[in-house]
């Protein structure tokens, strides 16, 4: 099967193309050189005057797994009014901030996104994540495995056994068919099982005597030692608190040159403001990011409207429940993790929400290198991913941004830097922060670019002055060379596959784990691993 997208303005940052007119040829699902294609036999699209980009790559979203599904179950009110009828092979679905799985895949197609990473999965329930991901069509995907409150790892740290920790992590990634190491409020989630939390990098985890600093350093080192394609992915301590910016900067320092990706950084960039309203400390955080080596971030931009907060950060979610009075799910997962879910509505008139909104904007505008700051809304925590076009417009159009800024409560606006920040993102930079940058940080070689060998994941947009309208309605979207959406409407259901890693480890650890499982878990060691044959076809990405 051959496809030619002809004469479009190609934005392929990795190949250095910044809107130059050219053709993209796809054969058997991959981008190929023009000379490898039989033009007579190829189907061609006239893309003259249109913008051609690689398919979008979502570096961090909560789309499948136990926590996401609990959010769906809890929120029938989120689904009503957001239904989608079946059409041919395109399945029915429903959901606004937590769409059902088929609808999730289709909504991504309708934005021109073709890859998305499930932000967290506790290994004990990874089987669920993969089974659910199998029912998310039209995108390729992967899952980040939470380890920052893992008992075995904390014990290794306490016993000063970094090699054992490394072997365990390598085993765990293979067993859970994971893609990367995820850390969420290291130590804090374990402490929440005692009704407590952590507040400083050197606080102690109850029962282990290790610290968040040690957990982060251990896992960052392991990710580098194992040569994992993606760095350690960190949701830091103090999310939502006025101390977060300080401890974010301290966390960056603690990484000591190791690679790391700091997720939804907007939520972790606050300082103490006046009258119980935090203020943005995006400047300090951005400065630390700019000065660092090997740190990438996604912003987790807040979008006004409905959202569903769902994270593995148990104490955070309890705090949100207390602050909002909204219904609350908590789930403590033995030996590994925790988390919770609370619905929320973000309003421009609410000074706290306003501060959160401008913190995210300031991060985008103050972090210099677009290859290190990626677009996300921590879907659905700060807003649904269907709002990405709105965020793009805010970045590209300072008048629109100013208008939204003016609609915020005065208490949010008073110390904001944002009015002084005139920067507007270019189309090329948008292509970086939504495609090329995340793909590179994730180590997905065939994603985020349109060079020869790339997957035929392509989004073609009509250039419009209103950038939100432009990115909300791609003219054509291709997944592996197959047309999946046209004029912003999905028209095909295709399967995606899962990326995972299987780093080497000393197999001797399995005997120890077999014994460990008898005391530490309530499932058999042999039943814990996600077996071959379950979940979508997986592609193992090499380490090293």
């Amino acid at each position: 099967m051959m496809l030619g997208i002809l004469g479009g303005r190609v934005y392929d940052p990795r190949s250095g193309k910044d809107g130059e007119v050219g053709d993209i040829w796809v054969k058997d699902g991959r981008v190929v050189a023009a000379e490898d294609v039989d033009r007579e036999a190829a189907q061609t699209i006239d893309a003259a005057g249109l913008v051609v980009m690689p398919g979008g790559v979502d570096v961090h979203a909560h789309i499948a797994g136990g926590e996401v599904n609990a959010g769906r179950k809890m929120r029938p009110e989120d689904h009503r009014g957001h239904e989608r009828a079946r059409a041919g092979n395109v399945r029915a679905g429903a959901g606004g901030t937590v769409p059902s799985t088929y609808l999730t895949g289709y909504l991504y197609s309708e934005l021109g996104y073709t890859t998305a990473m499930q932000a967290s999965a506790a290994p004990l329930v990874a089987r669920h994540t993969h089974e659910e991901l199998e029912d998310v069509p039209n995108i390729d995907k992967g899952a980040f495995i939470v380890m920052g409150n893992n008992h075995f790892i904390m014990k290794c740290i306490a016993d000063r056994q970094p090699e054992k920790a490394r072997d365990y992590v390598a085993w765990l990634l293979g067993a859970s068919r994971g893609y990367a190491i995820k850390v969420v409020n290291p130590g804090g989630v374990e402490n929440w099982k005692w009704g407590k939390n952590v507040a400083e990098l050197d606080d102690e985890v109850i029962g282990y005597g290790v610290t968040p600093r040690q957990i982060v350093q251990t896992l960052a080192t392991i990710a580098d030692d194992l040569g994992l394609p993606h760095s350690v992915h960190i949701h830091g301590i103090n999310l939502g608190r006025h101390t977060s910016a300080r401890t974010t900067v301290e966390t960056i320092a603690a990484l000591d040159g190791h690679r790391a990706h700091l997720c939804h950084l907007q939520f972790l960039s606050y300082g103490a403001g006046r009258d119980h309203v935090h203020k943005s400390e995006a400047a300090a955080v951005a400065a630390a990011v700019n000065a660092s080596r090997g740190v990438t971030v996604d912003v987790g931009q807040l979008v006004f409207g409905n959202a569903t907060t769902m994270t593995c950060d148990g104490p955070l979610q309890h705090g949100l429940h207390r602050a909002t009075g909204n219904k609350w799910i908590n789930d403590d997962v033995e030996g590994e993790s925790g988390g919770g879910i609370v619905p929320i509505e973000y309003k421009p008139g609410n000074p706290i929400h306003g501060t959160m909104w401008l913190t995210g904007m300031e991060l985008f505008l103050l972090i210099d290198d677009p290859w290190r700051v990626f677009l996300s809304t921590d879907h659905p925590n700060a807003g649904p991913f269907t709002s990405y076009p709105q965020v793009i417009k805010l970045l590209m159009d300072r008048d629109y941004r100013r208008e939204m800024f003016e609609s915020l409560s005065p208490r949010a606006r008073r110390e904001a830097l944002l009015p002084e920040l005139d920067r507007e993102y270019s189309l090329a930079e948008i292509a970086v922060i939504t495609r090329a940058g995340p793909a590179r940080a994730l180590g997905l070689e065939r994603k985020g670019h349109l060079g020869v060998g790339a997957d035929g994941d392509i989004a073609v947009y009509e250039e419009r002055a209103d950038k939100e309208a432009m990115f909300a309605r791609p003219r054509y979207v291709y997944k592996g060379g197959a047309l999946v959406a046209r004029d912003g409407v999905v028209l095909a259901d295709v399967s995606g596959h899962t990326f995972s890693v299987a780093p080497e480890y000393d197999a001797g650890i399995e005997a120890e784990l077999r014994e460990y499982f008898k005391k530490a878990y309530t499932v058999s060691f042999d039943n814990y691993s996600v077996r071959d044959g379950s979940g979508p076809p997986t592609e193992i990405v090499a380490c090293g």
Partner: protein
Amino acid sequence: MSTLVENVACPFCGCLCDDLTVEAEGTEILKVRLACSSGQGIFKDYDPSPRRPLIEGREVEWDEAVAAAAKILAAADSPLIYGLSSSASEAQRKAVALADRIGAVIDSTSSVCHGPTGLAMQAVGEPTCTLGEVRDRADLLVFWGCNPDASHLRHFPRFSLTAKGALTPNGRADRTVYVVDVRPTGSSKKADHFLQVDFGTDFEVLTTLRLLVKGMEPSTDTVGGVPVARLKELVERMKSCRYGVAFMGMGLTMGSARQLNVAELFTLVAELNEFARFSVIPMRGHGNVTGADQVLTWTSGYPFAVSFARGYPQFGPGEFTAVDMLARRAADAAVIIASDPGAHFPAAAAAHLRRIPTIVLDHGPSVVSSHASVLFPTAAYGVDAAGTAYRMDNVPIPLTKVISTGRPTDEEILDRIIEVVS
């Protein structure tokens, strides 16, 4: 030559105990180690003899049965798909695909079990945990309106009452156990404290507990037949425990206040977290009813009582729940998967299944299979078919195909029906 299969998960109840060892010779199961008496039956009473599908009691080939089933569904205006809780999630996903394709109502046994629990969770949320947290941390257990001694026979030794864990090395001695019920049971006899409540007063007792947690004084000395002094003791213990866990069951979901009872308990548990860590776990009955909730939710947005009649999912407890669909004669055809509403529904609802064409997928004889229009004898999940099931605490457990009769799975039959109706 017998084979020994280890780490087999018992698919009977929501415990999904996965430490069984099964000895089999050919398709005969000789011995099952560690299963409780209910689980023994699942394996030992499975009849592996070859069976053919039936149309109106007449033996036919598989293709003919599939065609007959597809014909029934194509002609139906208001088909109902029901059951699901004793089949693997892979089959449940196919059931939803079929419902989507033909515009059916799909419901699981949740609706007559923990449906009200789901409604409560939708209203107020649910602070919960996995069973290992109970074993390792819980020093206070409250069993409300459930009787694990009768329904989940290994729950006490594996997870709760007597289980030994990291912070509970002395097992039973490290815990204080309450049972709240309307009558003494095998479970209440094992408790430290039994609160016998008057039938139909759980809501009042729960709301009184909430008042007491907030330091308020009730205006009576007894509530629901329980002295307030005893409720105060319970509250004291709940507010000062290390990690408390409540388990709830049909005593609350089947009570006259249905989901309001459950919501009151869930709210109490949430409020207790101001003082002590507390969680609640619903005692899910069937082996994979939790899976049915999960699958229906991720594919449609709603956990049970889903209608695809308009082409998109609609949620309607009381409308699209199976008992209501049948009692009101709103269904004109039914697909019953791994379940026996003929036995377990009120008779007037079960009677409607005899009036309408009924397609049954089940591994053994049941009331509903005895009058099926089309009967598919499928492989029993967890015995004769592998797959995935979800434990009561949402942990997914792989099921083992211990013997191989060659029967198709529920998943395979549903797939074939979907192919023909499409």
